[in-house]
């Protein structure tokens, strides 16, 4: 594979690897990759790749957890080195995201544990992790309310929103945001009847939103809008992938 070094000049819209600001890297998803895990998936966005495995639900909750609901345990393992503060932060974010999409009352007093192993990191790691965790939960048959599709956006100094930034781009942007948005559901009828319009506001809701760095309010909403459009594309990819 040959790599081309593209010189970025003033006013040039192309990014370091030749993509346009709205272009994502190639996606790939494989499910049921681990033999012993109850559910597993490997999700890659370009060179970033995360392997997620799900065990559970197993009976019994840890101390301090509510026994009337299922409890979720997340372990994030970096590619090298010990588990530090960033990993703990990712675990917390992922736990919050998954608690909102898993139906917790379905299996009270059980623990479902999700382990994420970073295989390679080239930027947009958190969104890759969330997508891998969702695909692994689907593979395990855990009951979900909706799927959460995640996307990372970077905001450059001149206000351009870059989707799915690579590691080099992440170091150069002014601010950085990661969104997990619910996927758009299919409806059984070809036309959605007037009575169910109320449900539309709940579709494409934001499950998680994390920002690093400082950005204007308008920039945040701009990122969000781009993120929403991207998640619908990722959602279509996921549906096609699940059919096979």
């Amino acid at each position, binding site marked *: 594979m040959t790599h081309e070094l593209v010189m970025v000049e003033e006013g040039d819209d192309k990014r370091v690897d030749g993509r346009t600001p709205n272009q994502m890297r190639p996606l790939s998803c494989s499910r049921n990759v681990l033999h012993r895990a109850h559910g597993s998936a490997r999700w890659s966005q370009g060179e970033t790749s995360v392997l997620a495995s799900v065990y559970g639900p197993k009976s019994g909750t840890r101390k301090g957890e509510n026994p009337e609901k299922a409890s979720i345990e997340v372990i994030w393992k970096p590619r090298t080195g010990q588990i530090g503060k960033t990993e703990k932060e990712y675990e917390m974010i992922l736990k919050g995201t998954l608690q909102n999409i898993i*139906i917790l009352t379905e299996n009270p007093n059980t623990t479902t544990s999700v382990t994420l192993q970073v295989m390679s990191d080239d930027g947009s790691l958190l969104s890759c992790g969330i997508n891998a965790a969702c695909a692994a939960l689907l593979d395990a048959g855990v009951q979900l309310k909706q799927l959460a599709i995640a996307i990372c956006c970077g905001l450059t100094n001149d206000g351009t929103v870059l989707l799915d930034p690579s590691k080099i781009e992440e170091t150069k942007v002014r601010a950085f945001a990661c969104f997990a948005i619910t996927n758009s559901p299919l409806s059984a009828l070809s036309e959605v009847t007037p009575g169910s319009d109320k449900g539309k506001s709940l579709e494409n809701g934001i499950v998680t939103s994390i920002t690093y760095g400082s950005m204007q309010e308008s920039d945040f909403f701009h990122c969000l809008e781009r993120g929403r459009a991207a998640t619908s594309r990722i959602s279509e990819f996921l549906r096609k992938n699940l059919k096979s």
Partner: protein
Amino acid sequence: MEVKSTPSQQPNLLIDQAIVPGDVVLHLSNISTNKIKLGLGLRQDADTIKATNMGLLKHSRPNKYWVESSTKRYIPTAGDAVLGIVIDSKPDNFVLDIKGPNLAFLPVLAFEGGTRKNIPKYEVGTLVYVRVVKANKIMNPEVACTDANGKSAEFGSLKDGYMFETSTGLSQMLLSSPTCPVLDALGKKLSFELAVGLNGRVWVDASSPEAVVLVSNSIMNSEFLSDTQQKIMVKTLLKKIEL
């Protein structure tokens, strides 16, 4: 020109299609029948029925809907026949692992003609073929070694043989009628005893170890093969032991 039909006559576009959690399967305001039976993978959300698992949406007239999927774990449902492994024995019941979120309880008296005097001695690790009597999400499922009428009907501990674990989808395929091609092809040449648990456990016993290994391998290979492929696969394996 699109012909507008009344809402209750509009065909459901998602039947036999792959769906993911969150997809709206039914709009209850449009349904003509009063009673709808929901199987695994579906849930009521206000006035819609939504999917909670990914899989194929299936419909059986007049009003049954469910999502067909294959998982490594099992969700206990009343009426299913499963293979459990004894983990512990308490004074009143045996505790079994049935690959579900909770451990199952097998009452010591849940056998045909069971009294306090003739409680079977199941040690830890015994493989038992049982029927799920009660299963809901809050309590541990209850199982029994009798059928619905109280007769023993082949339930009980399985001695000798070999047990292996598969997915729930393969178990359903093995139990489907008409008989699935792999079992048909094996049955024509070999004689063996088979117990299939809907929780993804299969037990095989035959007179010789080669037969047991062959039957187990054929079944494990057949999950994603088509009918003809299954027949060819069995034929190739049988050739290896000159049958």
